[in-house]
């Protein structure tokens, strides 16, 4: 497992067997989204089994954070196993609903 941490934000990657699990905690905004993009893009490129973003610990999401999730979902397409959003927190579900983006992701609750 490796981790990356900014103030109030934490990304932990657990490659394991099969799908890679990335646990995200804290506030996902236009600044911390850059860190998430870098980390998960790297994971998507190194696995054919896909990535699960575990999002129950995300306490804030803005449109910059949402754009990063949309981009990662697009990168995860094309036979690479895909990106799934796992147990998204209420702030994430709210922004997905407000912006009509819920259908653009595979979501596991």
């Amino acid at each position, binding site marked *: 497992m490796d981790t990356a941490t900014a*103030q*109030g934000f934490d990304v932990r990657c657990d490659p394991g067997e099969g799908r890679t699990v990335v646990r995200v905690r804290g*506030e996902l*905004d*236009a*600044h911390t989204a850059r860190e998430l993009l870098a980390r998960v893009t790297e994971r998507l490129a190194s696995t054919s089994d896909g990535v699960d973003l575990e999002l129950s610990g995300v306490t*804030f999401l*803005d*449109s*910059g954070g*949402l*754009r990063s999730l949309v981009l990662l979902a697009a990168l995860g397409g094309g036979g690479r196993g895909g990106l799934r959003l796992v147990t998204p927190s209420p*702030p994430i579900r709210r*922004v997905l609903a*407000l*912006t*009509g*983006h819920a259908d653009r992701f595979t979501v596991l609750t």
Partner: protein
Amino acid sequence: MFRRRNPVSGEARDDVVAITLPARLERLRLLRLVAAEVAIGADFGVDDIEDLRAGVDELSSLLFVAARPGSVARVRFTTATGSVAFRATVARRPGASIEPDEVARLVLDAVTDGYATEASADELQVELVRRRRPGAAS
């Protein structure tokens, strides 16, 4: 209530929090913290506090991306009865745009009671107002 009285006239006046900070995305978290503190002082409920934080974050993100590198943001929160107004100004990076995209507009429409962006040759400004929802006071 959060309103204070003018020590000279004794009249109630609006409460103002004014800060300057580097116009960088790294400072969004600090602005959200200040917004939450101001909202609590205005007797906002939990949902109203989260909406004010979200609105301040969205507009400040736009502003900071378009700010001249190395510049500071001048930020002002004004609390009146049942509402909080936010305004922030930065020096403009030449040619930078400050219009929110569709996703940001959808969020701002949902979490504010009005917002505006303004660009001049040298400066960019954003502002919003958020009113306390009926029955939301603590």
